[in-house]
C-alpha cells in the first residue's frame, strides 16, 4: 500500500502456490505460538492508554487502505490468518503468519488451489454474535458491495467474475463454500497463487458479523472479533478502543495490556510530538517532525524508537515517454541522485537503497557493488549520449508532505544540473497517486513509494513492475515497466511447484529479478527505505514496544 492512495482493482497475483513450504515457514500447524526475533517485555494491565494518532481513512475494515487504520485494526479485526504479533527484524522473521480465527493453517491440495479452513469454536464478536464460518464469504461479498479497494486481491477465487463485473450486485461466490455447523470454509482458486495465504492476512478479509450493513459503517465501526473493539469514533477527532467483552484468548494474539485506548486524531506532527513530550499522551503514532528529531533524540533518547519499514521510496520514470524510453536517460537519473542527500532531506529518517525490494524480505539481496555511485559528470555524459539533452521534463511530487516535496524538488534540481529543463508539478497528497496513475496525465518522472500489503515479492513486482498490470487509470505501475524478459520471469516465478516457491533458490531468483530490473533495465530509481518513529511518554516502558513489520502494537504497550 501507499500511505495515501487508491489501489488498482486489478492486482494480478500470479505466483504459483507454495503452500507446503508456507505452512512450514509459518511454524507448523495451528495453535503454536509464533517465535519472535525480539521478545517484548510482558507488562501488567493498566486502565487507559492515551495515544496521539494520525488520521485514519475509514474505521471499516472493508474500506480502509491506510496505515493509520490498519495499525488500529491489528488489535480489533482478525482475519482467518494473521501476521505474527512480534517484532520481526529482518528476513524470514517478517514473513511468518499464524492462524487467527482459523484453528490452523489450511489443508490444501498439492498445487494449493483448494484450501480448507476450520474456524475456532466458541468465538464471539464484541456485540455478542457468534462467529460463523459463513461470515467469511459474507465479508468478501460485503467488500465487493462496498467497492472496497481490496477486491482486486480476490480475482483468483473461482466464480468471482460476476462480482468483479458488477461489484455492488455481488451476492454469491461459488469458489467459497462453508458449513456453519462444522465451522468449515473451503476456498477454491482458479490457479495456484502462492501469496494467497498472505492475502488472507489483510484486513479486507477480517471477519465482520453478517448483520453488518453493506455500506460504510463507522459510527460505530463494525463489531470486532479481536481483543478490542471500537467503542466510539469521531472522524478527524478521536476514537476509543475497549476490551472486547466476549474475547476468548487465541494463541499468538496478545490479549492486550491497556483496558482502554483513547486516541486523539491529529495530523500535525509537531503538535502530536508536543503532546507526548509533555506527558499529556503516552504514545505518538505520527512520525516525529524532522526539524525536532535531533532535539527530541537528545532529550528523550530512551523514549524514541526508529524502525525501518518494508517500504521503498523511489522516483518513477515513465518508460512510454521521452526521454525515459531511453535507458541511458534512466541511468543518468540514477547517477544524478545522491541517496545520502535524500536521506538528509528526510531528516535522517531513511536508509539509502539501490534495490527495489526492501531488506526486510528473505528474497532481498543487496546490490553489490553499488550500481550507481553518485556522479553528476557520469550522468551528464549519459544524457549527452542519449541525445535527450535540453528536453523539458515534468517532475511530479506531493506538495503537502515535507520530505516528499523536498525529494521532488531535489530531483528537479539534479535534472536541471545534468542538462534537462525540469518543470515542477506539486500536487496535494489527497489526489496525487490518482493523478500520476492516470495515463492521460503523462507524468514523466516523479516521487512515488510503496509500503507492503503482505510480505511476499509479488506485492512489489507483480503490482509495480509487471507489464500486463499497466492500467489507464489507477495505475500502480507508474513507470509503465513492461519488459518481456522480466514479465516472463515474474510469470515463471509465479508458477513454480509449491515445493519451490519459498526455497532458497526461488528467493535467489527474486533477488536476481530485482537486480535485473534495477541494473539491466533500470526500471526505477529507488533511493531509500523509509524509517518511522515511535515516541513514548516517560510513564511508558519502551521495552514493551513491538513493531509488527509495519507498525507498533498498542495492545502490547506497557507502563514502567
Amino acid at each position, binding site marked *: 500500500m501507499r500511505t495515501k492512495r487508491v489501489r488498482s482493482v486489478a492486482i494480478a497475483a500470479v505466483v504459483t502456490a507454495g503452500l507446503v513450504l508456507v505452512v512450514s515457514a509459518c511454524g507448523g500447524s495451528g495453535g503454536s505460538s509464533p517465535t519472535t526475533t525480539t521478545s517484548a517485555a510482558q507488562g501488567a494491565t493498566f486502565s487507559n492508554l492515551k495515544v496521539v494518532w494520525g488520521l485514519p481513512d475509514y474505521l471499516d475494515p472493508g474500506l480502509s487502505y491506510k496505515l493509520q487504520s490498519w495499525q488500529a485494526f491489528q488489535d480489533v479485526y482478525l482475519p482467518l490468518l494473521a501476521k505474527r504479533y512480534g517484532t*520481526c527484524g529482518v528476513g524470514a522473521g517478517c514473513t511468518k503468519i499464524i492462524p487467527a480465527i482459523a484453528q490452523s493453517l489450511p489443508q490444501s491440495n498439492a498445487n494449493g488451489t483448494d484450501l480448507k479452513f476450520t474456524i475456532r469454536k466458541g468465538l464471539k464478536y464484541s456485540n455478542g454474535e457468534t462467529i460463523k464460518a459463513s461470515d467469511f464469504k459474507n465479508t468478501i461479498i460485503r467488500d465487493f458491495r462496498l467497492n472496497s479497494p481490496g477486491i482486486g486481491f480476490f480475482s483468483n477465487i473461482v466464480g468471482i467474475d460476476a462480482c468483479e463485473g458488477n461489484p455492488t450486485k455481488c451476492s454469491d461466490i461459488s469458489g467459497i463454500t462453508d458449513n456453519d455447523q462444522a465451522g468449515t470454509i473451503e476456498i477454491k482458486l482458479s490457479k495456484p497463487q502462492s501469496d494467497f495465504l498472505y492475502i488472507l492476512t489483510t484486513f479486507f478479509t477480517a471477519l465482520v458479523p453478517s448483520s453488518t450493513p453493506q455500506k460504510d459503517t463507522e459510527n460505530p465501526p463494525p463489531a470486532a472479533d479481536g481483543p478490542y473493539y471500537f467503542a466510539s469514533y469521531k472522524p478527524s477527532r478521536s476514537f476509543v478502543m475497549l476490551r472486547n467483552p466476549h474475547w476468548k484468548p487465541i494463541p499468538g494474539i496478545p490479549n492486550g495490556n491497556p483496558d482502554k485506548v483513547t486516541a486523539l486524531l491529529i495530523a500535525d506532527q509537531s503538535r502530536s510530538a508536543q503532546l507526548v513530550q509533555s506527558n499529556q499522551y503516552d504514545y505518538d503514532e505520527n512520525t516525529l*517532525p524532522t526539524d525536532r528529531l*535531533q532535539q527530541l533524540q537528545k532529550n528523550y533518547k530512551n523514549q524514541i524508537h526508529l524502525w*525501518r519499514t518494508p517500504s521503498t521510496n523511489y522516483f518513477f520514470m515513465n518508460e512510454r515517454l521521452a526521454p525515459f524510453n531511453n535507458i541511458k536517460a534512466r541511468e543518468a537519473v540514477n547517477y544524478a541522485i545522491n541517496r545520502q542527500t535524500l536521506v538528509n532531506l528526510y531528516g535522517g529518517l531513511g536508509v539509502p537503497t539501490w534495490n527495489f525490494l526492501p531488506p526486510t524480505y528473505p528474497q532481498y539481496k543487496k546490490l553489490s557493488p553499488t550500481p550507481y555511485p553518485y556522479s553528476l559528470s557520469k550522468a551528464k555524459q549519459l544524457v549527452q549520449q542519449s541525445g535527450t539533452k535540453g528536453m523539458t521534463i515534468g517532475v511530479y511530487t506531493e506538495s503537502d508532505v515535507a520530505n516528499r516535496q523536498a525529494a521532488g524538488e531535489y530531483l528537479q534540481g539534479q535534472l536541471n544540473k545534468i542538462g534537462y529543463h525540469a518543470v515542477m508539478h506539486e500536487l496535494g497528497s489527497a489526489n496525487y497517486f490518482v493523478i500520476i496513475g492516470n495515463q492521460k496525465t503523462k507524468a514523466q518522472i516523479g516521487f512515488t513509494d510503496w509500503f507492503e500489503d503482505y510480505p511476499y515479492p509479488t506485492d512489489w513486482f507483480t503490482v509495480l513492475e509487471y507489464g500486463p498490470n499497466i492500467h489507464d487509470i489507477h495505475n500502480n505501475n507508474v513507470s509503465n515497466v513492461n519488459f518481456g524478459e522480466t514479465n516472463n520471469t515474474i510469470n515463471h516465478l509465479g508458477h513454480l511447484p509449491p515445493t519451490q516457491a519459498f526455497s532458497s533458490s526461488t528467493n535467489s531468483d527474486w533477488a536476481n529479478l530485482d537486480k535485473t530490473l534495477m541494473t539491466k533495465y533500470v526500471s526505477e530509481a529507488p533511493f531509500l527505505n523509509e524509517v518511522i518513529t515511535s515516541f513514548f511518554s516517560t510513564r511508558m516502558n519502551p521495552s514493551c514496544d513491538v513493531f509488527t513489520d509495519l507498525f507498533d502494537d498498542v495492545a502490547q504497550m506497557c507502563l514502567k
Partner: protein
Amino acid sequence: MATPGTTQEEFTLDTAAELAAEEGGSKIEGKSPWVLAGRRLRRNYTALVFLAIFLLIVFLCFVFAPIYSSHLSHLGPDFENASGVIHENGKTIHIISQGKSTFGKDGQVHTTAAGIPIGPQLGKSGVAYFFGADQQGRDIATRLLYGGRNTLFIGLVAAAICTVIAILLALLAAYFGGATDWIISRAFDLIWAFPVILLGIALGTALNINGFHHGPINIAAGSLWIPTLVIAFVFIPYVGRPLRGQVLALRNREFVEASTAQGAGPLRIMFTELLPNIASSVLVLFTLIVANAILTEVALSFLGAGVQPPHPSWGTMIANGQNFLSTRPWMAILPGIMITITVISLNVFGDGLRDALDPRAKVKMEH
C-alpha cells in the same frame, strides 16, 4: 475575503472638486479635479510614507535582486546546494546537516538526525547565506528578493488585467443593459459564488499539470502567467460589480444625454464620458485589488497551486519554512514580514488615495 462595498451615490471627480472647494475657496479656481486630489494626497504624509515603503520594496525586488544575486551572494534564487559546504574560520560547515543511519538486526534504525539547513550567517562567511539556507540549500536572502519579484509581478499584473477586463464588462453591462447586462451580471454572480481561494486552487492545480494550450494561447505548466491569470479571473466580479453600479447611475445623467444628442456613438460615450467619471473609483479599487491579489498569490503558492518550485514566491517560502518552525523559524517569518509590510503599505496608500479622491469613503473593500 474582501468584498467591495456598495456605493450609495455616484462619486466623480466633480465630487473631489467640491470637496476641495469646501477647503479652500478661491485656491481651487482653474484647477482640475486630478490636481486637487493630488494636492490632498500630498498632505497625507502617512500615505506617502507607505507609498515610499512600497516603492522601496519594488526597487529591492526588481532592481536590487539581480545585483545581489550576481555580485554579492553569487547564488541564484533556484541554486540547490543540499550537498554543499561553506568554510568559516577554517571550519567546514554543511549547508544541510548530515546524518548517518545504521540498521540493527532487530529492525531498529540508529540514526543521526539530519536535514536541518544552515542558519543566518549575517556576513560571517561573506554575503552568501546571509539569512541562512532553506531545506534544499538555497540562499534565503536571494530567494526573498526574487520571491518578492514574483509575488509583486503576479499581484500587480493580475490586478491590472482584472481591472481592465472588469472596466470593459462593467461599461458594456451598464451602458447596453438588457440581455447584455443580464449575461454579464450572471457571469459575475457565477464567479462570485465560488470562494476565491477554492476557485483559485481548482484552476491553479488543473492548469499547473499540463498548462493551458487552446488556440493561439500557449502557457506552459509552471509558468508565472498561470497564477497571474487565475487571480485576475477570480477577482473580476469584485471590481466589475461596483463599477457597473456606478456606470448605471451615470448613464442617465445630463452630460451623457448631451453627448448622445450630439451624435456620439456607444464607444465614444463609454470611453470618453463614462470612463473618466469612474476613474477615481478604478484607481482606488486597483490599489486594494493589488493587495488582495498579493495575498491570494501567497495563499495559492502556500497551498501548491500558485508559483511552482523551484521558483520562489513569498507564499512558497512560507510553505517551506513551516516545516522548520522549531529550529529555523526565520524561514517562514522573513517572507511573512515582507508580505505584511507590502500589504499594509498598499492598504494605507490605498486609503490615502481614497481619502484624496473620495473622502466620503464610498468606495471601499470590506474585510
